[in-house]
């Protein structure tokens, strides 16, 4: 096992002020069980789950309360024992609403575990994959892609490298960092299970060089793992945690346009997802809770809370001493790609790893100024696009023109808008353009 500096780094990217000191030293603290949990049916990419319980049902912790809604979907389990009091629409962080199962938690907790696989080394990949799917494990790095699907690449796409994503490149967030410090051993087992399932030879644990203690912790537990295993120390740069950029930094391979990591023989999993895989396979625990960094300059006591899915943001804020001063923006996730929410009555899910409360001092508003063609966004874009030209096309409603200059390759990382001196809402333009392209493609499919 070696620790190697990453041989490459992607071109572009930015270096924002990280502000991780606010929460980096806070050990993971379990949130006291809230009285009510509003468990969303959509905590993952793909079709929402379909409720499998009715109002009035009593559920045990870990019990299945919603089935996967399709192939690209995941089931949802009860985070705690209690009674189902409502099936209603809830606001989610992205602004859309989705169905939710509201559970009033019981004072006496009962837990219903799934089967465990202590001899996972001798279990077939298919069995393990099905189990991970049954446990509702999804990617916990933010997108929530169902892990079962990610770990089942087609046979014509062999995987030789598994990359464990410990970069956590977003400013303010420290959840993955604390997981690596406090649960390194479990993460290692999860990584081994993933490598076993994929039949891959190589494992790389990718961590940015601004987390030397996490690098040391991971070095220690991966020390005696067999095979081609190494901790790769990445250059600290945003968005080093983005899949495509990370694969390049670790292996030098570029995921082809419109392609997926499996096209270059790689699978990237977040360290928290590796933990969830371990929890599911070894402990029979479905994914029902996660660590969330509650931080920012408008929260009294920043913390890394282990909270059950379905906890309202207001409960998280209360558990951290409440708002300090005035919160001008509340963000679900990190400041670069997170969603600004309009109220604290939003429940947590499996994917968002942060809740950021920012005071008016930290807010820089977008303007409607014209592009001055300074080119800083072109330098910053990690996908090597031209955000200046793209945003000008989209503003002029020239969606075809934008598509021709690679609009659909945009990963919405926000590096361009971060550096724009005219403070243009570049990512907003990209999203608007992409939505128009998708609408056109959908309409074209309908007309014969």
């Amino acid at each position, binding site marked *: 096992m070696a620790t190697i500096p990453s041989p490459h780094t992607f071109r572009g990217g930015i270096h924002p002020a990280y502000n991780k000191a606010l929460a980096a030293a806070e050990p993971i603290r379990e949130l006291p069980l809230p009285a009510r949990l509003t468990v969303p049916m959509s905590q993952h990419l793909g079709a929402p789950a379909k409720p499998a319980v009715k109002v009035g049902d009593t559920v045990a912790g870990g019990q299945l309360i919603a089935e996967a809604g399709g192939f690209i979907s995941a089931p949802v389990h009860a985070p705690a024992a209690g009674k189902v009091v409502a099936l209603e629409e809830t*606001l989610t962080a*992205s*602004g*859309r*609403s989705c169905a939710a199962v509201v559970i009033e938690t019981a004072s006496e907790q009962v837990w219903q575990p799934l089967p465990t696989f202590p001899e996972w080394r001798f279990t077939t990949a298919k069995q393990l994959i099905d189990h991970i799917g049954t446990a509702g494990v999804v990617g916990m790095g933010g997108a929530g892609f169902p892990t079962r699907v990610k770990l089942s690449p087609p046979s014509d796409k062999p995987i030789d490298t598994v990359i464990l994503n410990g970069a956590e490149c977003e400013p303010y967030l420290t959840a993955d960092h604390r997981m690596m410090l406090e649960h390194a051993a479990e993460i290692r087992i999860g990584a081994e299970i993933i490598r076993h399932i994929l039949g891959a030879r190589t494992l790389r644990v990718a961590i940015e060089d601004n987390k030397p203690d996490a690098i040391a912790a991971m070095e220690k537990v991966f020390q005696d793992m067999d095979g081609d295993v190494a901790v790769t120390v990445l250059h600290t740069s945003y968005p080093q945690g983005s899949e495509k950029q990370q694969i390049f930094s670790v292996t030098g391979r570029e995921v082809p346009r419109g392609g997926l990591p499996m096209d270059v023989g790689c699978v990237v999993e977040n360290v928290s997802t590796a933990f969830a895989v371990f929890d599911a396979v070894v402990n029979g625990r479905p994914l029902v809770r996660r660590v969330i960094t509650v931080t920012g300059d408008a929260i009294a006591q920043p913390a890394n809370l282990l909270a059950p899915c379905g906890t309202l943001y207001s409960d998280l804020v209360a558990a951290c001493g409440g708002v300090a001063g005035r919160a001008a923006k509340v963000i679900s996730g990190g400041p670069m790609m997170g*969603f*600004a*929410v*309009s*109220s604290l009555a939003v429940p947590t899910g499996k994917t968002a790893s942060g809740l950021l409360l920012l005071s008016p001092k930290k807010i820089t*508003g*977008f303007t*409607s100024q014209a592009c001055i063609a300074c080119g800083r966004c072109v330098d910053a874009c990690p996908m090597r696009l031209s955000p200046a030209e793209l945003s000008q096309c989209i503003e002029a409603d020239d969606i075809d023109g934008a598509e021709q200059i690679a609009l659909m390759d945009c990963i919405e990382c926000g590096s361009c808008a971060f550096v724009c001196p005219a403070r243009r*809402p570049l990512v*907003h*333009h990209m*999203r*608007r353009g992409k*939505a128009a392209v998708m609408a056109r493609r959908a309409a074209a499919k309908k007309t014969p």
Partner: protein
Amino acid sequence: MDPITTSTLCVGGIGLASAAALAVAEKYLSVPQDPRIGKVTEILPGANCGGCGYAGCADYARAIVVDNAECNLCAPGGAACAQAIASFLGRAAAAMERRVAIVLCCGDDTEALRRAAYNGIADCAAAQATAGGDKGCTYGCLGYGSCARVCPVNAIRIANGIAKVDKALCIACGKCVAACPRKLIKLVPAAAEIHVLCSSKDKGPAVKKVCGTGCIGCRICTKLADGAINMDGFLAVVDYAKPLTNEETVAKCPGHCIRKDPPASVQPPTPRS
């Protein structure tokens, strides 16, 4: 020869030659086209708004003459135009009623709450995609003007944070209907005067929390409208196929969301070419 004569002869010669070439091309290379298409194109108002579903007036004219498309699809042209085309082609004219667009929301910033401070592109779809929009009512008009921008005749005005269509100018092309991300705009008969200006499907108490002038689902109007207003869940909806003249519906609505328009012309406005 001096330069002036040379230049004049050269340029003049090129001009004459080009004109001759064009004349020859016009005679021998022209694409044969049914002459009726040209005449129908002339009858059509020439707004090229696309409301008929075809790519401009000439395309619609071709469709009428060649594909036997209906003559009454042109909203700006109206009944007069449909009649003229039908009689020119010797066909029976179908009935045509002038329609106008209407924004089914009256919750402007003096009545309806904003639940967040929106900072972003002044476009309704973009605002809707940002945390579900900044309006308290998730069904109401966001007022960022996407409909006003696509209107080819500038018939839509944004006042106090919501959109309002000027019936006198509207040519019912349907672009605003497509542009609205909340599907608030409908095409209704121009002759209809009483409308329920609310689209909120929320229950009464939920509506009142976010808007002082929304439909609370009390059903008083359904009793006064003689079948012309029906309930869609908690929302009153006008059935424009039935006549609605009872002004008590306006007076007795507790949410003041039923309004009566001043009368509008049954002739569409003359489009400026």
